[in-house]
């Protein structure tokens, strides 16, 4: 049923979205860029104007409060407490190409909501068409993360947000230019003042990354078919998905040992030895972050939520489909590690000898982790008036503002 519901949401025409916007958002239509005073879905507004996350996993506990376990287990600690205005400002900034050095790229170019907040590319394209070393991870449920980037080099949403903004191969901006552009804009200074009323000078980098973090923390996906099974509906998964769940958590496949429920990641670094794309040198990953040879080729275990929406897979998008990515684990420990390459492979990388049928069922199960029911409204226009270019030029079709 939820599948239908998602299908409905995703396949709807521009006309329908326009119709919704007239119903729901006509309050904001008059002043085009005033900020929301209500929280996004799944958040309660507190008396001191903070959005507090609510989800069904809050009914449960977890061992050592680490947010790891089985079906009815609490999630890891999360970020919330941002104001509705900060979240909404973050949403506008997120979709605004003004944030990039040459004003052609917004965050949404690589974190496109229509592609699971990823970009459908093996490796993302940054400023001046430069190809990034790695693929863009999904932003769904990043509120629950304490480790960011494939190589685990950041520990907060804010620290993460700084990275792409000022990276020469990503958005290639500078703090000076970014602040100058935002201050010269006719609309942003007032919006920043609304979102950060305590600041004398609200247009500062710290507030920009706070707003971006606030928006990212609002991207909650916890109502998939799997979740309904976890909360107690024995019929929420079809027989193929249920068979897949049992393979997923079996100690033959061992998927859940690292993609641990309920977030479907244990947020640890793992060296699994996937092949690099043709002609590319080994990406050393977390070795650089921790200055540790044992972590050579190690990457953060990614969440599997909405994984069916974010092909291709692995840190450099080596696998085009979920089936291929799943099959990697079945081909034998170290089968893709070139001769002479020394990797301390993770102990759960083994030789499970799963059947083709079992691999198919795992893919079915991962399909049951899709939920985009809290998709944020994508702004039709942003305060800079700049258009989103190229890959996400179609975003405007689903505008709500």
């Amino acid at each position: 049923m939820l599948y239908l519901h998602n299908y409905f949401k995703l396949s709807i025409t521009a006309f329908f979205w326009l119709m919704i916007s007239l119903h729901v958002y006509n309050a904001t239509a008059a002043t085009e860029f005033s900020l929301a005073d209500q929280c996004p879905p799944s958040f309660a507004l507190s008396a001191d104007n903070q959005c507090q996350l609510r989800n069904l996993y809050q009914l449960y506990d977890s061992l050592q409060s680490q947010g790891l376990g089985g079906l009815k287990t609490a999630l890891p600690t999360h970020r919330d407490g941002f104001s509705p205005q900060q979240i909404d400002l973050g949403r506008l900034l997120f979709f605004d190409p003004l944030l990039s050095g040459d004003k052609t790229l917004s965050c949404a170019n690589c974190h496109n909501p229509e592609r699971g907040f990823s970009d459908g590319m093996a490796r993302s394209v940054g400023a001046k068409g430069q190809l990034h070393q790695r693929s863009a991870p999904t932003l769904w449920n990043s509120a629950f993360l304490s480790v960011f980037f494939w190589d685990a080099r950041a520990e907060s949403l804010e620290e993460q947000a700084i990275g792409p903004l000022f990276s020469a191969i990503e958005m290639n901006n500078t703090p000076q230019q970014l602040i100058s552009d935002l201050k010269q804009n006719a609309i942003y200074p007032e919006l920043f003042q609304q979102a950060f009323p305590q600041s004398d000078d609200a247009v500062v980098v710290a507030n920009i990354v706070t707003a971006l973090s606030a928006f990212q923390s609002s991207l909650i996906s916890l109502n998939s078919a799997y979740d309904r099974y976890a909360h107690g509906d024995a019929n929420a998964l079809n027989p193929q998905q249920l068979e897949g769940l049992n393979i997923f958590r079996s100690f033959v496949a061992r998927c859940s040992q690292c993609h641990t429920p309920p977030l479907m990641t244990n947020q640890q670094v793992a060296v699994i030895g996937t092949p690099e794309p043709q002609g590319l040198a080994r990406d050393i990953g977390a070795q650089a972050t921790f200055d540790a040879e044992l972590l050579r080729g190690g990457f953060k275990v990614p969440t599997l939520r909405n994984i069916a929406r974010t092909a291709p897979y692995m840190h450099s998008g080596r696998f085009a489909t979920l089936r291929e990515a799943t099959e990697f684990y079945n081909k034998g420990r170290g089968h893709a590690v070139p001769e002479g390459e020394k990797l301390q492979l993770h102990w759960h990388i083994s030789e499970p000898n799963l059947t083709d049928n079992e691999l198919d069922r795992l893919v079915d199960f991962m399909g049951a982790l899709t939920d985009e029911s809290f998709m944020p409204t994508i702004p039709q226009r942003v305060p800079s008036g700049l258009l989103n270019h190229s890959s996400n030029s179609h975003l405007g079709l689903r505008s709500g503002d």
Partner: protein
Amino acid sequence: MNNKIKVVFLILVFAGGWILGSQNNKAPVITSSIGGASYAGGYQGQQGAVAPRTEQGQVHIVEAGQSIQAAVEAAQPGDSIQVMPGTYSETVYIDKDNIHLRGVIQEGKRATLDGLGTLNDAILYSGNNVVIENFRITQYKGNGIMGQAGNNFEIRNNVIVDTGIYGIFPQLGTNGLVEHNVVSGIEDAAIYIGMSDNIHVAYNEVFDSVAGIEIENSRHAIVEHNNAHHNTGGILAFVTPGLPIKTTEDVIIRNNFVLDNNTPNFGAPGSIVSGIPAGTGILVMAADDVIIEGNIISGNKTAGIIVNDHSFAPTITMDIESDPNSDRTMILDNVMLNNGYDTIPEVTAVALTELHTGSVDIVHVGSSDGSCIINRHRYRAVGIGDYGECDFTNTDSIDSYLIAGGAQPRIIRPEERGEIAYLGVCTGCHSYTGRLIGPSVQVIQAMYAGNPQGLVDYINAPIKKRDNFPPMPAQNYLDAETQLAVAEYMLALEK
């Protein structure tokens, strides 16, 4: 260990050994472990992991030829399932609370789960208050019995033979009892407690496996009265780096038989246990506050007790959040016979730095902050020069680390439940004022004013009411209490 550190280490140990060696002529201090002070640390626990039922639910009988899983699906929390002797080839998974799954033993014949070498795991459970007992399990590829996050479990009197990776593996659970099981022929650990709290492992026989009993990244565990024999390693307490729960603390290993664990290591390449040397009695690696008491440790050719840090292990990764040292190891009286008679070069090297030749009962490698021992003169020990004298002699005051009454579920008031469910689920489709995917809350309030039960009935089995709206998915996965709470919450909303 890199070479430079190794050299420094050897010199330090050499000096320590020399000083200790020069004191060897004094008459040893003999400490009586009878009636002395008892260990006062740890966790104050109780017996039994699953609270006795105040009322019995239905009993479902499964006869040979029928499906155990079908009975699990039919069972309600509070029910019991009795499986008659016979052979069953299936994976049984229990994703509900308070189910007692029992094999029936008739004149020695058991309900046997046979994986035929093709099925993955025999029994998986995620529910709380689950009891699994009296089965025979064989020929599965994965685990015999595996728990994921279920609290308050009892796994008892099962015979697990030649089954895959782990025989019994509760993971991420609190408060569990594993007792009277006979587990053998396991490629990793016969009994493996992973990332769990408040555990009691007692009266089990584990043999012919790579590891007998492992306590890994877990706290408040007692391992007692087990017979661990003819494994590669007998009883292990350690921290595996790279796991999300980072510590092993407060483990008592007492009154076990740890005999002849000299089986050549047949662990899978790359597995953590594949680095265990054959002939290991008890191994402590990076675990803190481990007490070893009253064990009979005999015939383990590498050493009776090995305490080390992460640098000594070849198969593990690096984790900055993981403390690599074994702190506060406490060795009380143990009977140690004929250990370390054919040890590995690494142990010989450490022994030589202390001018020790011949067999080794106890070897400690790496820092040993806060560690202690009594009656050290009894043992052929190396690397324990920094061990102090323990200020207690026994653990008699501690019966169990299990939680009185069991681990309790989180208490959530009805109004909190209503808000959690409304915001966590309903707001994806319903807003207060306007149409989103479904009708507005105001429209719903007008229809069900004063009738929360009517709303509950609808969300349990929604019917399509409006042509231009998509059908609503049933919310019947919410329990009755949450359903009523969310209905009342929604009808009372004011904005």
